[in-house]
């Protein structure tokens, strides 16, 4: 079989030439491994910015949570066409609601991104990366985590006032375990436990963050001492700790020349001294990831928005005549059902959703303090009236006079009304009602089921989480 040998040797020769292994080692060109990301200070800072970036998402602070908080209450007449959003509006939400699921997921993604910084910054081997800088990055990430959990606990948990926080909250995930393959299925923490974690994160972060940065968009757009004090003031107010509310508010209002009450209403999206913390948006941020944004939801079609969220008759009546907060911050246009309506003009970009998301600003802190003063003293508090009158004057209205108010409750009602008119469409209204024991709506079929403690004033735990065996008891009523 000489010929056979010839065939075989030829075949053997043929294959001897075919190995080519080195050409299979191909690396991605647009991404980095976690190790490279956290190999120096620049990478660590980029990861911190990545965590801020995650909060820009439509479902986190990019607009949807603001809109939901407004239309579940009485400031917005929601005419949007999305069935999942209309379910929430009609208080018939089911647990498989995909908008709710997206919000849940994107909040936890922001938390994961923040956790990645908290977990990995201590291990970065970079001689030029100082201890102070490391502490600052970690502190900023803790602020992001606290802010995100705080929005979650207001959306998925009953207000602290219901059973003193001893109600189901959201699960606390404090490690970026998923990045190293550690998948967790934690149980729900109570509302009180989540509040405690938020306060812990913020207190730990306060000494380590910067007071301000050289650029205005960083001073107003990153975690600073002002931002942490302001958030602590709100957390304390929501919890009912009046002394701390006032203490943290004073850190902003007294002797701090970084912050000042604006003299008119041109401060939106401007990074002025009115802003304490605003999530910075550009035309390339949220517009690319979300199917909407602040301008997208609130503006009429002619301005590039969807016309989904015109002002309600209730808030138009509350403004009355001569209120600059209406006249200088509203426009008319047609809504999504082609009805001519009044829209807020606080957010101006309906096409690329580039408006900064105002999270913490001086007006709110001033209102926090005024409310806490009345509640803590249970009197017609003169200091509170003085504070609120700064807002009344700015709005072109006559200042309050102490004699107008029969008792502390009457003043409190007036302060809450000013709070509504000042902060309308910025996502405060729902919680301002619920934490004060008030129903979200006083008229219509849904009025009677919109009280604090009613099942559908908060959102359901997404069905998917329960399907996947996470030990998450569903909110009552879902």
């Amino acid at each position, binding site marked *: 079989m000489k010929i056979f040998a010839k*065939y075989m040797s030829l075949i053997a020769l043929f294959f001897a030439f075919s190995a080519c292994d080195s050409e299979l080692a191909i690396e991605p060109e647009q991404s980095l491994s976690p190790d490279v990301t956290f190999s120096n200070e620049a990478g660590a800072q980029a990861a911190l910015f990545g965590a801020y970036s995650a909060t820009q998402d439509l479902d986190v602070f990019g607009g949807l949570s603001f809109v939901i908080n407004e239309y579940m209450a009485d400031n917005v007449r929601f005419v949007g066409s999305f069935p999942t959003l209309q379910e929430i509006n009609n208080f018939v939400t089911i647990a498989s609601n995909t908008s709710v699921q997206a919000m849940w997921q994107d909040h936890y993604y922001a938390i994961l991104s923040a956790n990645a910084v908290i977990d990995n910054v201590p291990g970065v081997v970079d001689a030029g990366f100082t201890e102070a800088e490391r502490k600052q990055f970690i502190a900023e990430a803790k602020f992001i985590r606290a802010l995100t959990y705080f929005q979650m606990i207001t959306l998925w948990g009953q207000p602290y006032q219901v059973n003193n926080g001893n109600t189901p909250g959201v699960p606390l995930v404090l490690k970026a375990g998923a990045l190293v393959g550690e998948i967790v299925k934690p149980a729900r923490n109570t509302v009180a436990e989540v509040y405690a974690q938020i306060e812990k994160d913020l207190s730990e972060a306060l000494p380590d963050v910067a007071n301000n940065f050289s650029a205005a968009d960083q001073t107003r757009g990153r975690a600073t001492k002002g931002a942490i004090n302001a958030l602590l003031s709100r957390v304390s107010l929501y919890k009912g700790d009046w002394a701390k509310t006032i203490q943290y508010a004073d850190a902003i209002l007294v002797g701090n020349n970084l912050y000042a009450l604006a003299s008119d209403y041109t401060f939106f999206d401007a990074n002025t001294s009115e802003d304490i913390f605003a999530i910075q948006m550009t035309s390339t941020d949220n517009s690319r990831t979300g199917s909407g944004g602040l301008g997208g939801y609130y503006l009429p079609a002619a301005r590039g928005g969807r016309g989904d969220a015109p002002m309600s008759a209730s808030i138009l009546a509350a403004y009355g005549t001569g209120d600059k907060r209406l006249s200088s911050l509203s426009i008319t246009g047609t809504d999504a059902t082609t009805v001519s309506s009044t829209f807020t003009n606080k957010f101006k970009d309906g096409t690329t959703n580039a408006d900064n998301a105002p999270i913490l600003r001086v007006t709110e802190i001033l209102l926090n303090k005024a409310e806490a003063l009345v509640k803590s003293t249970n009197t017609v508090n003169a200091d509170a009236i003085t504070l609120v009158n700064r807002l009344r004057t700015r709005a072109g209205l006559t200042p309050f006079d102490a004699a107008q108010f029969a008792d502390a409750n009457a003043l409190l009602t007036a302060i809450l009304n000013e709070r509504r008119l000042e902060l309308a469409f910025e996502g405060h209204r729902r919680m301002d009602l619920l934490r004060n024991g008030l129903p979200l709506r006083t008229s219509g079929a849904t009025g009677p089921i919109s009280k604090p403690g009613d099942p559908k004033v908060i959102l359901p735990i997404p069905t998917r989480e329960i399907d996947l065996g996470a030990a998450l008891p569903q909110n009552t009523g879902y």
Partner: protein
Amino acid sequence: MKKLSLVFVLLLLGSAALWAQKNITGKVTDSNGEALIGASILVKGTVKGTITDIEGSFSLAIPEGSNVLQISYTGFKAQEVTLGTETTLTIIMETDAIGLDETVVVAYGTQSNRFRVQSIGTVTAENIKNVPLLGPQQLLQGQVAGVQMTNMSGVLGSAAAIRVRGPSSINAGGNPLFVIDGVPLNDRDYSAAQGAGAGLNPLNDINPNDIASMTVLKDAGATAIYGSRGANGVILITTKKGKAGTNTVNFDYFTGTSEPTFVLEMMNAQQYRDYRKAYANVTVPGEGGFDWPSAVRQTGRINNYTLNLSGGNDKTQYYLSGSFLNQSNYAIGNDLDRMNGRLNFNHTFSDKFRFGANIGISRIVNDRIGSDNNTFAPLTSAFLQLPTVQPYDAAGNYVNTGFITNVLALEALGTNQLVTNRTYANTYFKLDVLPGLFVQSDWGIDLVDIQETTRQANVNTPGGLASNRLSDDNKWLTTNTLNLERQFGDLALGAVAGFSFETALYDFTYVEGRNFSSDALRNVSSAATPTSTQNNRSQWALNSQFVRTNFRYKDRYIVEGSVRRDGSSRFGSENRYGTFWAVSGGWVVSEEQFMKGLGFLNQLKLTASYGLNGNDRIGDFPSLGLFGSGVLSDYSGGAGLRPTQIANPDLKWETTTQLDLGISIAILNNRVSLDVNYYNKKTSDLLLDIPLPLLNGFASITRNAGEMENRGVDINLNTVNIKTKKFEWKTNFNIGFLENEVLSLPDASKDLEGRQFVGGTLQRAIVGHSINTFFMVPYKGINPDNGNAEWIARDGSIINTVNPNERQIVGDAIPDFTGGFSNTFNYNGFDFNVFFNFTYGNSIYLGDLTFTENPIGGFNYARRVADYWTESNRDAAFPAATSATRNVFSQASTLHLLDGSFIRLRNISLGYTLKGSQLKTEAFQNVRLYVMGQNLWTLRAKGWEGRGQDPEIADAGNANLRQGQSFFTPPQAKMITGGLNITF
């Protein structure tokens, strides 16, 4: 280049061998003694061959060591003649009605149907010569048992979901591998998704008239040699070659019109106003209305021109073709122009050396429209838009209509264009090395260049928007094989062994800008606000070795084995290589002595195969942990990084093993042939996106976990019912039965009944059930007593809400069987063809019904929504205006799940052929005039009338976990064409 040097080594070896030769002359005729011109004669196992001349004669030098000639001619049975001592031959060819002795294309070679042990399906030019085709995928629909092809939608250029013997993966890609003239095609989703699943048809760029044959490789015996890419089946496309001896020119033209098969019935303005007043007590402002659904429709036009020239001499053969297709759809704004050119040539350089090339180039200009879940899609928005909304103001200018955009303005003022330029080419060199042994070297490319341009006018997107998207995917590969074919006494030995290297670099650029001072400024650089600047590159490479050997003893017993070892850049260094293999056996029972007495039996063959394949379609870097950068990660001007992928260093190949048992029978002088194959295809180590609780920050992690099985039977029956000199009637019937079952999903979550599953809220893969199981709350109906809508809970009780805890298994999206039935009649120059295809037993979820049939929705309503419950209309389809159930009526339930079975008259055609000789002219050889209808008749299951459109849909394209779902998916076109075909 190591490979190149190898080729030279082989060349040297080859030329060193010298053999004695002998000369043979002969003549090839049909059974009536008529000379056959251009019949091909090949010395078996060599590249040496020739073609008969005008007298049917040939002359050939036979190298020593070779003693078998292969003679083939289209329409006749191929023959092998073993040479004795004679030097003059007369070869009489028998007509071949059913292709028993046809040579069919298989992976890296060809085989005779008679001795084939692989399970394949073929479509040849002969099958399709009278069918004007718009795209090659049409060749697969209802033509091959076990191949399910579902057009994604009726949008021009849209892709199709193609499944060979069911879905064999969950999260890895599901389409088969397409190989054209030896070049595996690039098949990423290049185009931007515009509401429906991303993806245009990867075969769009091929002129269907250039196709000589399509082979679907189905069992492991056929696909294992494609290794890590064979699990979904492989489709081999071979283009036409020139034939020596005759130079022919063929011109074809057809023209026609198209309409949608079905259209939704929506309310007009008056009906809408009446309904809103009556049901919701809302007085709709304004007067008059506008018929949006009609305004976005038109009569589609199609014109197609094809010219090809082919021929050559015994040294060189050529095939040159060009075609131009100009098509407009039944929807406004959707047009497609396609230009194709092809040059195939072969040249015999010497007795031992041949080479050739197959070069195809194409350009497609596609005016796109969005579809499905997209408010900028004409065929979605026209149904959602309120009929009281006007597209124009009093002055006749377009107006902004809000969230549901003014699609008339969009199409009139905007641009949405996709231009594809593509070149695929393969050159080959064949060299005889030893008797029966030749070496072949192939070098191929597939260059895809796609440019997408969009522009939305100020009236649609305030400020205006423009974008430009460039995708380049450049592949090159080389395949080098040794091919052996020799007869040693009673033993016939065939083998192919080779190696290949293949790599592709994908480069993607996207720019977008908004805010223009004028609609007349069309491009991104005129925008005031640049909103996107992206450029990405991604590369992969595959390095492979493979062998297939085939032994045949006494033409009765056949054993075949194949092995391929693939190394892929897509897997981590620990699992980079995978080895795939198959063995097959066949017994040609009819060749046994004891069967020889059965005169009616022409062939009885039993086959069996078993083997395994892989699937590498999981993206380019699935195993790495990644932090992504760019504008989605930046913050306030600072560069950012954020987690985008969880690391899976242990990720490895998904493997699909397949058992195939077949029987093949031909009887009654080959007038009836039947092929039946049973298969059991089992995928293990599934590449599975294990869903994670979202509180981990990621929705899923890819792991190798779980098993899935596809079992089924493919039946193909060809009959020649009547055959006389003037009249012939042929029938093909094929049917594929399929049962898909998920066997295990170890890490997946459990539903309330304890079953493990992955997937979404409506459709999921459930252990013990299909991968595409629908999981919903069953809808019962409207209670005639009180007008409440009622659903059924798991315990059988009646409920008035759509509680997700009450979801049940209610059907699946995979048909029980699909198939086709075609009849061809030829009489005295007339040809008549009727072709049906059918699908049975699948469910389809129509997501659009949650909008059109939402009694309190904010959009327009289906006309039948007016059939709501009142005291005087108790047998109603919709809840009473006073019922609380109206608020939840539109939440997904089986109310929106329909039976997807259908039978469709896919094609009917009538033609008449006039031969030049009949008119005693030599001006032309023959002329064929034809008329044809496509999709003229469709029978849908109950429940579609007035609610749904076309049951042939796949809104997410190829996504394995989302089949049989629709969201206003545009229906198929109903088309009537007439044409003319002249051969000179």
